[in-house]
């Protein structure tokens, strides 16, 4: 292949799932209690997308990765301290809310407009990556809408593998029902890949890479444009986090069969 890929990954923060996530009614609609004070992590779906993109870029000469992040600038800065040493990328930051109560349509609009303005981005070589869902609000539609706004019609959802072929085409595995994959072959970029978990583990830390990334990340954060996203016109009737039921018993001598039977009974109930 004569030219590498231009990989744009859309990904931002979600509250650390270990924290207490308590929905409350804020002045401007629903919110999470103390959300700005909670530690945040990279949305795990977007994380898979970023690591796949970095891996692909490293294996494909003349490729480059941009991470487009929409979130509160100060929280994004904290996030970068964790991910900068893991993958080579250039940050493009948008300063705005990243909670689970923004409307996917507005988020997609802001992301698409931002991507259009990335200097040096060749949209004919664009692989637009992101998560197929989000840990903050599983709308599952954002990437498709970003793709539409960028006029990319080849869109693949719940991707677990993306392999460039020698003839220039790209082979893609998408998750479908019953634990099976749908295998597609795409003529080439541009395309949208909304990733499921992918196949790669979280990359190890590379402090030197982190230092190198941070040289462009800090200016990018300073230049972050405000993005007006919210949920205009949307009325939230009810908001709640998924309920957990914990009935813990400590049993040390149960057989696997007994455990399986008990789990099935519990599910049936």
């Amino acid at each position: 292949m004569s030219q590498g890929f231009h990989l744009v990954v859309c990904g931002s923060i979600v509250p650390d799932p270990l924290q207490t996530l308590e929905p409350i009614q804020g002045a401007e609609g629903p919110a999470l209690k103390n959300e700005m004070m909670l530690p945040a992590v990279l949305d795990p779906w977007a994380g898979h997308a970023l690591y796949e993109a970095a891996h692909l870029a490293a294996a494909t000469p003349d490729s480059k990765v941009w991470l487009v992040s929409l979130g509160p600038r100060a929280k994004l800065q904290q996030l970068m301290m964790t991910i900068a040493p893991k993958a080579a990328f250039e940050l493009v930051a948008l300063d705005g809310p990243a909670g689970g109560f923004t409307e996917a349509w507005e988020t997609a609009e802001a992301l698409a407009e931002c991507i259009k303005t990335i200097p040096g981005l060749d949209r004919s070589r664009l692989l637009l990556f992101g998560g197929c869902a989000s840990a903050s609000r599983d709308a599952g539609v954002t990437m498709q809408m970003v793709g539409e706004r960028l006029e990319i019609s080849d869109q693949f959802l719940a991707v677990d593998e993306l392999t460039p072929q020698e003839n220039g085409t790209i082979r893609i595995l998408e998750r479908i029902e019953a634990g099976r994959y749908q295998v597609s072959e795409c003529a080439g970029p541009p395309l949208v890949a909304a990733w499921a978990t992918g196949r790669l583990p979280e990359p190890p830390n590379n402090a030197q890479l982190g230092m190198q990334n941070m040289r462009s990340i800090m200016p990018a954060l300073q230049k972050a444009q405000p993005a007006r996203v919210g949920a205009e016109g949307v009325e939230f009737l009810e908001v709640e986090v998924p309920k957990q039921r914990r009935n813990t018993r400590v049993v040390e001598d149960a057989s696997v069969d007994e455990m399986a039977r008990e789990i099935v009974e519990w599910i049936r109930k």
Partner: protein
Amino acid sequence: MSPDGPRMKRGRESMTTAKTQTEKMALRALPGDEVRQILWRFADRYDLQMAVQAVRALARGPVARMVADGARNSHEWTDEKAALLNEFDASGLTALGMDPEFGGYVEGPKNLALALAAFELSWVDGGSATSAMATNLALGPIHERGTPEQQKTYMSRCVPPQPGEKRTIWRGAFALTEPLPYVGVNTRVLSGGVRVAKWKEGEEPLLQVEKRGRFITNMAFANFVTAAVDSDDERIKGSCMIILHEDDPGVFDRGAPTRKLVHQLSSTNDPIFSLKVPASRIVGGFKVRDGVLVPNYDHAEIIAAVFRRTRVTVGLMTAAKLLSAVEPIIRYQRGRYRGGKTIEPGSAFHELGLQQKEDVLHRLVDIWASGEASAALGFAAARLFDEFDPIEKHKDKVFEERGLKGRAQLKELKKLEKPALEYIELAATPAAKRDAKRFEELEADRLVQFMVQDAVANVLCPAVKLWNTGQGTNMMREAVSLMGGYGITEDCPGFIGQKWMDAQLEATYEGPEAVQRRQLAITMTQPVFLAHFRQWIAEMRRVAGRRPGTGACTVASAMELWLWTLRHLSEAEDADGTPLYRDKRQGVTFPMADALCWLLASRQQILDLLELERRGPENEALAEGLPGYVRFFTDLCHVQAARAAGEVGRLCSELVFGYNRHPSWEAEGASCYQADELEPLDGFIPGIAACARSFTDVVEADGSHPQKAGPCVCFTGMEAFTSMRRKLDGCLTGARMAKDRAARDLTQVMIPEVPDYPT
């Protein structure tokens, strides 16, 4: 309309406003990275922020899993424990202490960087921190005093290989401590020896090193050892530190693992070395004078330079334990009764559990306040050494060029004392009123600046090591007690029981408490330090004027009392006429050192609070919670200031009065009335006899007297002290209200749903 109507409405409005204000000012979530970065002054250092995140992931991932799986239950260095070393390498921790030219990634001095890393690891397990820091300790002598060739050789071997590079990472051990009765507390008494094995004319001498070590960290796998040895040969002068390799000819016996009860994720052995090594392995090199090999640095000089930095890191390891205990204790307290048949969700028993009881909250406030104070003190010291490193290097260079060593160097430094004192005075004078030219001149003089900072460093380092670990261990016992029976089990969330034991080792290794007290007893009386101290009193008063409620005024009053006591003890004698403040009189000097540490920690905690207040608004993520954090940390400062003042007052009173002889009934001239003196007087001054019996001591005609040890002590000559002491007691006003407020916050603060590391 009723005339009461509008008034009632106004009343309701103001109540609503007050409620909102109270909510705003409450501690809403546990302080996160944004708060810590400001408090500990690395908000602008993304290299350090990244390092913290990387080490945290390591600590709360592989390290925590290992502890939870019971890896601490063996003395031996197992394959499982050895796997940690690879994790250190992969996280970037191994290269954190190296300069970029040798494969590191943090520019400049790395005291704060290493302190933060040790803090993060100790949040979960102190042994892993010791293990991670041990190679840095082994490299310490080389870093501080090694030749450029030695630095390049060993630093670059101790970092992970770069892509495409094939080599094994070297690990080091630092061997100073020897089997009893040799080097331990007294680092000068060495039994390890070095002799000339072969020395041909014009060739490099070959040395025979004999050394037995005790409690040597990293010994199970170290590829090299920096060992302290004394000359055992008239052709070698004095002592030195020397580098030994595992493949040097002779015996490199790693020895038996130490059966230690703590820090089991670090390897500790009692090794034996009998090796032939070239003289070029002497750390810092050597010269040959009149046929005698003279090391450029003796071992004491090298370890002093090393320990003054690494001891700060150890102090922070205990601070991390205290702060890490807060969340598990809150979770335990709240969940204590959940699951009981009669405990309904929503009831106070269900939601607050033990937190309904004031005592457990107050005790947790004390633990948290101590943790904040010790972290504040430790990180301040680490930052100071980062600033100080280049200044000290400059001083070393200048003195080396001038050929000044040992006493000659001390003599030269003594000359700098006067300008250093002048600088401190000018620095405290408002810019408009001071001699600007002279101030700039002194500020630009790096030797003067060395004196100015060295005086503080010489106090802060032992203070951190002593107070953070010693008092920290005491407070960890409190933390264990707050977890009930759970606290002393391996299942205790947050590994609090293990941390308590680990803290005791931290109070011991790298110089036990007595060594630190001894050092403080000398350094805290140096004029340059005392000049700083006087300025700090004024600084605390200014802070108190601006920010009442922080406890700054209390700290200032306690500092004045300490200073008065020090002056008094320096001049006073005990009842037997023996001078009090003397090197060997540790009953006097050591408590004064202890008292000082409380003050230094409390002062730094207050300064950190001011930094949070000043820089917090710059961070948008903090906007929502900042008022609550500031209010809560203000209360913690106040609580800690009161504890510090209490300790200082108690210790100073004991020392000031404790060496006087108590008046006795039998002594001649006892300071009391005799009944037969009073009776005649009563005729002239009716009522004086009764009055005297009410207010003072009277010996009756039959020799009987009030039932007590003797006449009450007379405070003549001590008015200044008693007045300051009385004032200090009054300064505690409000401290318990602050504790109550902080305790209330603990019942409301949001904690994570589950711990972020396995237990």
